[in-house]
Structures are given as structure tokens and as C-alpha cells.
């Protein structure tokens, strides 16, 4: 392995500093890490997944299963990166992975000796049988298996880079920047279509880049590129992979904006995720070469023939001085010839008896030793190939005579080519096996908006590639509405045979007994051997989908790009069926791994969703509130005084409200304007209680059900005018209630003349609660808020500092209380006015925790009780339901199962002792075993300052009949059992004397 002094597509004037496992490697601009590793003679470069076998670079592309590395350090560290896809940059630091203590000497390689016990279905078999009644054995082993499993290690610190998302639209999306893709983009662009051309490589040219540099192909590519770049309606994106094809002509692309830099420039994104809407798309994605299967085909020094040629011609790396090239088709002849011309000693081992005479002559002229009707039976050497055992083979690939050893340092293999049809398959399902081309191919239907061209459609000559690409480009532009002049088709250029036109069906070499010699791999990355496929067959696996999962073939990060057809071929042989009938597995996005960061873009942390803040938000912060997230809202949780924790603060705040007066921000309540002549009828249908009698100036508490009869939401609705109602909902359900109302009005109740409009953000709201609340508000508004002028459940308009507000008299705390609704822009000044005026009444702000304590003391239900599984009856609210009118959910709420008196229903719990209950604890009778789900659960719990004890609400089977009973409250998570007395959920002031005062 060495770098040649001349040739390649490298900028030799720009040497780069690249290191692997601490070793400096010579690299140039235009290199990949894999090329630098090969040039530097690094071997092994990786260790395999299961057996920890030493592995070398196998390919030159996305299909690489072996050369997976840790790239970069710190927060930019990335595991499992194929070295073949890493564009070299100055300062590149990579290390080997899945090996300890080092790639060269890896303790885990001991697995290779025990491979007999690690065959297909190892997990399933080992952990059933004698151990099937015990999970303990599995749990003991799991620790070790989890540690041994996987490949690289993830970074443990946050990624410092940022990523972005972008939407784009185009008429024609061309995927692949090789000859076929360029041939398609040109006519589409000339016809005036908006064209996007994407190429995963950093250079355009595709297969041309593997031809000797400076040839006719390079000139052809440069000319096409120049023409495209001069057009305004063309966007060319390199370093961009189209990884997903979705319904409606949507494609997911990931552009590696700064992956070829040590770190992104300031304000530059690392990667960009494109969501492209394309009217038509052309898939010019080429093909991936298949390996051959023989003993030790995974040893470092065994490579794909096409890749050997790519390293030679593109990167000026001679992968071996003494090579065997083995093939079942014509395409590897170019590799053999180019290697021989570069000075290597080459033996071409062709599995076919009969080879095209011109090809044979060309090979011989280049100095290649040709052996036809032969195969490589086995590879010698462990960390590096030393010899190939070559034998004459019969029509089934079995050795006809004892092999002879040929000393080599490189084996280049070609088992044919598989078109890269992943994107097509993601959209349109399973491809069909084409016996003539010996590969799976896309089908074509009128409805298909993504169509293949070039090698991806098994084009067999360069002229055919250009012709297909051009035709697809014209067709796509025309279908997108651009039938203008597409110009003339580009001329072709001379190239060698690249398609395995005369491919033999042989893909493996066996001993005379039909078995491979040594370990012969089908899936390199997941260490699946041909014998694993055989074993799965013996155990009765016939479906390819089952075979895949049982043996894990194709389930590694390369997703079977190399393993697929060989595994299917073996399955077909064993079942005595043609491969077409065995079929293939389904391709799903992404085509290659995509960083989660790219898909997330900026939508993480605080940008994951909008943060909603009330108009008074900053006042809370300035006055020492500890905030808490409530859905998307930020709410004041509690306002600690010096030395107070949450518990001390909420107990003080709750007691303060019952003694003096408190102020709480309730702006987050959902608010919906319900307007129109039929508004009362609408409310009458959606709430369980009646609304026809509600007078202007009054408000009423209402409960609504879902269509299935369970309780949905509750809140108060005020009648502002003849046809004008103001509905409030819980904070959590605001959006759901609005959507439900819109659904009913637009899909079913279209005869009702009602509009519903969200006004949540238009109104700030403050609850003023406590014995001094009337005095405070009277002082501030100057209005008559006496018991006679404004009884409970009435509202009035008033002014505070010249701001028109609405004062609703209603109570959630159970104290004399008001809710003040203020146009949101004036929320903070009005709050401040109230706060300042409240000094003489000993006013204090309170947060959601003490608000919760107060409502539990009163036995009011909240989100913890309205959890979607409770009925009116469960909540002791059935008295609210009108018997005179139908309402949403009325009939289904009467389902017999919901009427069962034994259903858990709402009760209060007086907890014995100083320790409070935890919500979610289970309830059990006073004696007996605590097994199963018990008799119910705790929904809300608090310390009650008014009662001087811990209380809770919960749901208890036959709850109403068990008042007075002592039960146990068991918190299994905290391993804590408390005793509690069952009481009514109305703990405090059950007759409501305080709030009605």
C-alpha cells in the first residue's frame, strides 16, 4: 500500500495534517480519510461487531462496513463514521473503535474462537430453555452483553455546533451528479425548469472520478457542470445526500455544510436539512458493487474491485503490489488492467470459463495473468492477506481440485453490481429481480414521479447512460410543465466496460463438499456468515424478512448495502427457488445515517416549543417568584421568603389567603368568545348543565363531556350580552376545547349561528382571594362590590387606573374572591396597582402550589382528577347534569359499565401522621395483602394549613359507602405505607359560607 507520485484528483500543493490513533498520515486536499489510511499502510482500521476480527477498508463509498471510526473529539466527537465518507481536512483526528486495548491487539477477538456459540439467533436461544422461567440469568448477562454490543461510543458532552432546516421547491430534482444525473439536469434546465442537482460526494462526476484523471470523462463533466452553473434556474448541491423519498414529492436531503472543516466557521451551520418539494425527480444514483463469498473474505487486504480502482485513479493510492483480482463479470477487468499499468503484479481469477476475446486480449496486453474457470477458495493471513488459495471450480462454484497458494497483498473482488434504488423503493415498494441484468430493478408506472436513469436502471453502456439520463430529464421537465427546447444530447466519450454484462450467476466459492472454507461472510458489519444463513434455513426460516431479523443480516448501520443480494442468493439456492421468487426486503429512509441534530435543527432546548408568558410574567421574576412550567406556560409556583423552601412557602401563602388577601395570576386560563344568536343553544349542548336561563351579568360553572361520556373539561362562562358569552377553560385544555367546538359547529351543527374565537391571549386575569378582597377592590375601583350589588356568580365592569376591567365574583379558593379580567396589554400595570393598594390589607402574591392546596381543601377537581378516565358520577358531579336536555356525551355516559357503583369515585383522605401522601399512591383496605392495583389511587395531596393536617383526594372503589373507613395508602416507589381515614372531599367550609359572604 503506497501513494503514487503522480496521478489522482488531489491538490498536492495542499498537504493536510491528518491523524489516526495518534499516527500522522500524509494526506492532500481531495483525499478521504480511507484513502489516507490506505496510503499510510494502516491495518487493521476497524474491528468487527461480534467477533472483533481485524478489518481493513473494503469500499470507497457509503456502503463501507469495516472502516468505521471515531471522528473528532469532545462535543464534536462522532462514532461509527465510515472513513470512506470523510473528506480529509487539516487537523483531522480520528481513532479506532470497538477494540480494547487497541485495534492491533483487541481482547474482544477471543469471541472469534467462540463463534460457534454466537451464531444466528444466539440471544433467543441462550436465554430460553433451562432459563426460561427466570429473568435473573438474562439480567446478569445483560450488563456484559450491553457493554460488548454496539460499535463506537457516543459523545458524552453536548454538540457545540448548530444545524438548520430549510424548505425548498423545485420542478425537477436530480439525485446523483454522475454522467446520468448531469445528462438529466441539462435538458430539464435548458427547457426552463427549476432544477436541483444533488450529489453526496464533494465532487461531481460519479463513476468518472474512478477513471484515470485528465481523460475525456473529466472534460465531459467539466463542460456539463459549467453549463449548469451558468444557468440561473439550477441549484447544484454537493456534499448533499438525498436520504428519504416521501409522499407528495417530498425529499429529505442532508447537506454537510461544514463536515469537511475542522470546525464550522462562526455562524456557519454544521449541516443543513432540506425538505424539498419536487414536481418530478430523476434518480441517477448508480450502483454498488457486490462482494464475493469465500473463506476469509473479510480479511484486511480484501477489497471491492471497483474501490481498488477508485483509490488508484482518484486518490493515487496503490492498494497492493501483488494482487489477485477475482470476478464473476467483466467490470473488474478495468481494475486489473489499471493495477497492472500502475506497476502491480496482477493475477485475474475469473470464475467464468468463457470471457470476451477483446477483454482477454486487453488484459494480457497490460501484463495481467489470466485464470478463467477459477475461484478464490480461501484467504490466508489474519491482520493482512498473505496468500489466496486459488482452485479451478465447476458450474456450481465448487473446487474441482486442490487449491494452490498465490502470494498476494491485495485481493480485489467483484460479484456484480446492485443498482442503488433505495429512494425508489421507499416510495413505491419492492423492486423486481431482472434476470438479464442479474439485479433488482425499479418498475415503472404512470403514477411514478421518481424515475431511475443510468446505472441505477442497469444501463449497460455509456451511450445508454447518457441517452437514459437525457430522456428522463426531458420527460421530467415536460411533466412539470416545461416542454421548451431541451437542446441536443451530449456526445459520449470512450470508457471501459463497467456493467457486468456477461455476469456468471456464481457468487461464492466452495470446497468440493459444498461448504465454504473457514469463515465466509455475507454481512461484514454484523458478522453474518454464510453458515448463519444455512442455519436459519435449517431452522425453518423461509421469509426474507424473518431471515433478515433472525440472522441480523442487513441490520447494521450500512443496512445491507453489500449483504442483501448475496444473502438472498443463498436463501434462493437453499430453497431451490429463483431469486426473483425469494424477493427482497423493504428499503426505508434514511438511505445513509442522518445525524439527529440535522433533523432537529433549531427545535431543541428552549426552542423546542414556544414559551408562553402572561402579561405579568416579569413582575413575578422581579419579585422573587420561583416559576414552573404548566404546559407551554410559565407560571409562578411560589414566592419564597428568606429561608423558605417550597413547603414552607406554600403553607404560608395558603394560610395567608384564608386570613387576609392574596393575588394570583390566572391569565393562563383558556378563554373563548362564544358569540351569535344561537350561542345559548350551543352552550346548552356542549355543557352538561343548562344555559338557557343565564342572565346577562351572570356567570355559571359548567362541565363538559367528551363524545364517549367521560368528563372533558370544566370552567365558568359569563354572559356578557344578548348573544355574547365569555367561556373559560382549564389551562391544559384550552386548545382542545376550541378545536372540539369548531368541529361540532363546522361539521355537524352547521345550523347554529355561532362563532367561537380564542381570546386567551387578549385577556390577562388576576384572582383576588381572601376576606379582605372586597375591601381592596372597592378601594381600587370605587365600585359597589357589596354582597347585594355583586353576589357570587355575578360580574360587573369597572375601572382600575383608567383601564376598563371586568370583575367576576367567583371563588376557587373557597374564600370571598374575585377574578379581574384586564386587556392583556394592561395586565402588569393593573397588577401593580392592586399590589400597591393592597399594602394596608396585608396583600401577598401566591403561586400555583398554594392555589392547589386551597382547592384541595375545598375538594374542587382539577387536571389530576379530570384525567380522561373519570365520569361525572366518579367525580360526584352527576348533580350538575341536566335531565331536561340532551348534551354531548349524555347517552354514552350511561353505559352500564360506567354506572357500576363499585367504580372508584372521588373521596377525601385524612392522612394519619406527619408525612403526607404522594399522588399516584395506591389505596388498599386496612388489612390484607397489598397486591395488584388495589381499591383506588391518590390523585392530589397537600398539607392543609386550615385543617392542620395532611389531606388528599383520591378515587376509591365504592367510595361513597366507605366514608369513615380507615384504609392504607401505599407508595410503592417510596416503599411507604400510610394510614388514612376516608372522608368527603369537601374538607373545608363545605357549605360555602366564606365564599358567599
Amino acid at each position: 500500500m503506497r501513494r503514487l507520485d503522480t496521478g489522482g484528483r488531489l491538490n498536492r500543493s495542499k498537504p493536510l495534517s491528518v491523524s489516526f490513533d495518534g499516527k500522522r498520515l500524509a494526506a492532500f486536499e481531495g483525499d478521504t480519510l480511507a484513502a489516507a489510511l490506505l496510503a499510510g499502510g494502516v491495518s487493521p482500521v476497524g474491528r468487527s461487531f461480534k467477533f472483533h476480527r481485524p478489518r481493513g477498508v473494503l469500499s470507497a463509498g457509503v456502503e463501507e462496513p469495516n472502516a468505521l471510526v471515531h471522528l473528532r473529539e469532545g462535543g464534536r466527537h462522532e462514532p461509527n463514521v465510515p472513513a470512506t465518507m470523510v473528506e480529509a481536512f487539516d487537523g483531522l483526528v480520528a481513532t479506532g473503535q470497538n477494540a480494547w486495548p487497541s485495534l492491533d491487539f483487541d481482547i474482544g477477538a477471543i469471541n472469534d474462537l467462540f463463534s460457534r456459540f454466537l451464531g444466528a439467533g444466539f440471544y433467543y436461544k441462550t436465554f430460553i430453555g433451562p432459563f426460561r422461567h427466570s429473568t435473573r440469568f438474562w439480567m446478569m448477562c445483560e450488563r456484559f452483553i450491553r457493554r460488548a454490543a454496539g460499535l463506537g461510543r457516543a459523545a458524552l458532552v453536548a454538540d457545540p455546533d448548530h444545524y438548520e432546516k430549510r424548505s425548498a421547491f423545485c420542478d425537477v430534482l436530480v439525485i446523483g451528479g454522475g454522467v446520468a444525473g448531469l445528462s438529466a439536469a441539462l435538458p430539464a434546465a435548458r427547457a426552463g425548469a427549476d432544477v436541483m442537482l444533488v450529489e453526496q460526494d464533494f465532487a461531481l462526476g460519479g463513476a468518472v472520478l474512478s477513471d484515470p484523471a485528465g481523460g475525456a470523462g473529466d472534460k465531459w463533466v467539466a463542460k456539463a457542470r459549467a453549463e449548469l452553473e451558468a444557468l440561473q434556474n439550477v441549484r447544484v448541491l454537493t456534499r448533499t445526500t438525498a436520504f428519504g423519498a416521501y409522499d407528495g414529492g417530498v425529499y429529505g436531503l442532508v447537506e454537510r455544510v461544514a463536515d469537511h472543516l475542522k470546525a464550522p466557521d462562526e455562524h456557519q451551520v454544521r449541516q443543513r436539512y432540506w425538505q424539498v418539494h419536487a414536481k418530478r425527480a430523476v434518480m441517477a444514483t448508480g450502483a454498488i458493487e457486490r462482494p464475493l463469498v469465500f473463506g476469509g473474505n473479510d480479511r484486511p487486504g480484501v477489497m471491492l474491485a471497483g474501490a481498488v480502482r477508485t483509490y488508484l485513479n482518484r486518490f493515487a493510492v496503490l492498494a497492493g503490489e501483488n494482487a489477485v483480482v477475482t470476478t464473476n463479470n467483466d467490470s473488474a477487468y478495468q481494475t486489473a488492467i489499471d493495477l497492472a499499468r500502475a506497476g502491480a503484479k496482477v493475477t485475474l481469477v475469473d470464475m467464468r470459463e468463457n470471457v470476451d476475446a477483446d477483454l482477454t486480449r486487453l488484459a494480457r496486453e497490460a501484463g495481467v495473468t489470466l485464470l478463467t474457470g477459477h475461484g478464490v477458495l480461501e484467504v490466508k493471513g489474519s491482520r493482512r492477506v498473505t496468500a489466496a488459495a486459488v482452485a479451478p471450480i465447476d458450474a456450481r462454484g465448487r473446487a474441482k481440485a486442490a487449491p494452490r497458494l498465490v502470494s498476494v497483498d491485495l485481493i480485489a473482488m467483484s460479484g456484480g453490481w446492485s443498482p442503488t434504488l433505495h429512494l425508489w423503493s421507499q416510495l413505491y415498494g419492492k423492486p423486481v429481480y431482472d434476470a438479464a441484468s442479474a439485479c433488482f430493478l425499479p418498475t415503472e408506472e404512470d403514477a411514478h414521479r421518481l424515475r431511475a436513469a443510468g446505472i441505477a436502471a442497469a444501463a449497460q453502456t455509456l451511450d445508454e447512460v447518457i441517452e437514459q439520463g437525457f430522456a428522463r430529464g426531458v420527460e421530467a421537465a415536460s411533466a412539470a410543465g416545461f416542454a421548451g427546447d431541451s437542446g441536443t444530447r451530449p456526445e459520449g466519450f470512450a470508457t471501459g466496460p463497467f456493467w457486468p454484462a456477461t455476469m456468471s450467476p456464481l457468487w461464492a466459492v466452495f470446497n468440493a463438499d459444498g461448504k465454504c472454507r473457514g469463515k465466509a461472510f455475507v454481512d461484514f458489519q454484523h458478522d453474518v456468515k454464510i453458515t448463519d444463513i444455512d442455519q436459519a434455513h435449517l431452522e425453518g426460516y423461509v421469509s426474507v424478512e424473518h431471515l433478515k431479523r433472525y440472522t441480523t443480516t442487513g441490520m447494521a448501520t450500512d443496512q445491507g448495502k453489500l449483504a442483501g443480494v448475496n444473502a438472498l442468493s443463498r436463501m434462493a439456492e437453499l430453497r431451490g427457488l429463483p431469486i426473483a421468487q425469494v424477493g427482497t426486503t423493504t428499503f426505508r429512509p434514511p438511505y445513509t445515517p442522518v445525524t439527529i441534530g440535522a433533523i432537529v435543527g433549531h427545535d431543541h432546548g428552549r426552542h423546542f416549543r414556544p414559551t408562553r408568558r402572561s402579561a405579568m410574567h416579569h413582575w413575578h421574576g422581579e419579585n422573587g417568584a420561583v416559576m414552573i412550567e404548566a404546559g407551554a406556560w410559565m407560571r409562578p409556583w411560589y414566592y419564597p421568603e428568606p429561608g423558605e423552601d417550597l413547603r414552607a412557602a406554600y403553607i404560608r401563602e395558603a394560610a395567608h389567603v384564608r386570613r387576609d388577601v392574596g393575588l394570583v395570576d390566572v391569565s393562563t386560563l383558556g378563554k373563548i368568545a362564544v358569540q351569535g344568536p344561537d350561542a345559548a343553544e350551543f352552550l346548552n349542548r356542549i355543557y352538561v348543565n343548562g344555559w338557557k336561563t343565564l342572565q346577562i351579568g351572570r356567570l355559571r360553572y359548567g362541565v363538559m363531556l367528551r363524545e364517549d361520556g367521560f368528563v372533558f373539561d370544566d370552567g365558568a362562562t359569563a354572559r356578557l350580552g344578548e348573544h355574547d358569552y365569555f367561556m373559560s377553560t382549564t389551562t391544559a385544555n384550552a386548545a382542545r376545547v376550541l378545536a372540539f367546538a369548531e368541529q361540532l359547529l363546522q361539521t355537524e351543527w352547521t345550523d347554529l349561528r355561532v362563532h367561537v374565537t380564542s381570546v386567551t391571549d387578549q385577556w390577562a386575569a388576576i384572582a383576588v382571594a381572601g376576606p379582605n378582597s372586597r375591601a381592596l377592590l372597592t378601594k381600587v375601583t370605587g365600585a359597589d362590590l357589596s354582597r347585594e350589588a355583586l353576589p357570587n356568580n355575578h360580574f360587573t365592569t369597572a375601572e382600575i387606573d383608567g383601564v376598563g376591567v371586568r370583575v367576576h365574583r367567583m371563588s376557587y379558593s373557597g374564600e370571598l374572591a374575585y377574578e379581574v379580567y384586564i386587556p392583556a396589554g394592561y395586565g402588569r400595570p393593573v397588577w401593580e396597582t392592586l399590589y400597591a393598594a393592597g399594602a394596608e390589607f396585608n396583600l401577598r402574591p401566591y403561586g400555583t402550589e398554594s392555589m392547589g392546596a386551597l382547592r384541595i381543601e375545598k375538594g374542587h377537581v382539577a387536571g389530576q382528577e379530570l384525567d380522561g378516565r373519570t365520569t361525572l358520577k366518579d367525580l360526584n358531579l352527576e348533580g350538575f347534569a341536566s335531565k331536561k336536555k340532551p348534551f354531548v356525551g349524555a347517552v354514552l355516559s350511561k353505559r352500564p359499565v360506567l354506572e357500576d357503583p363499585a367504580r372508584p369515585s372521588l373521596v377525601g383522605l385524612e392522612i394519619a401522621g406527619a408525612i403526607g401522601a404522594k399522588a399516584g399512591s395506591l389505596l388498599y383496605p386496612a388489612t390484607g395483602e397489598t397486591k395488584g392495583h388495589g381499591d383506588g389511587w391518590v390523585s392530589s395531596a397537600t398539607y392543609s394549613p386550615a385543617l392542620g393536617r395532611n389531606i388528599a383526594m383520591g378515587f376509591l372503589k365504592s367510595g361513597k359507602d366507605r366514608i369513615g373507613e380507615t384504609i392504607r395508602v401505599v407508595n410503592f416507589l417510596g416503599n411507604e405505607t400510610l394510614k388514612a381515614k376516608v372522608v368527603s372531599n369537601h374538607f373545608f367550609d363545605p357549605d360555602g359560607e366564606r365564599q358567599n359572604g
Partner: protein
Amino acid sequence: MIRIDCPVCGLRNETEFAYGGDATVRRPAMDESEMGPWRDYVFIRDNPRGWHREYWHHVQGCRQWLVVERNTLTHEVGTCRLAREVAE
């Protein structure tokens, strides 16, 4: 991703909409007091292969409920009308 041609807002991405269920079922009359029709309306659904009518709610647009034809096999989207007009 499917795209829906909202009669009010024009062609928009699926992400602006919320799926609203089967548009072929009809809600029983408000005064229906039998359990059966309500059970069918709330719980019983066909799972058709091919063209189907669905409610979609343009939550991040005009807030209209729409009746969208969608092919459950191919994800193709057909006509899209305001639910209000379909109901009438």
C-alpha cells in the same frame, strides 16, 4: 408528507393540519337516546383500502374543518372541501 389544498389558504403542508378522523360517519341527532347509534358514531370505524374521506383541521391556518379525500393505499390526496359545505 402529504399536502392539502385548503379551500381558504391554498396548498399547504400536512404539518399545519391536525387529523380529525373519519368523515364518513355522521353524528346522531342531539335527541337520539339509544346507545347503539352513539356507540357506532364514537367507536365503530371501517379501515378501507383505497379512497377514503377524512376530516382534517387547519389548526395552524384558517381553523376550518375540511373533508379531504385520501387514498389510504398510496397517500394520494384528492379533493378538499370545507366540512361546513359538505354537511349542507
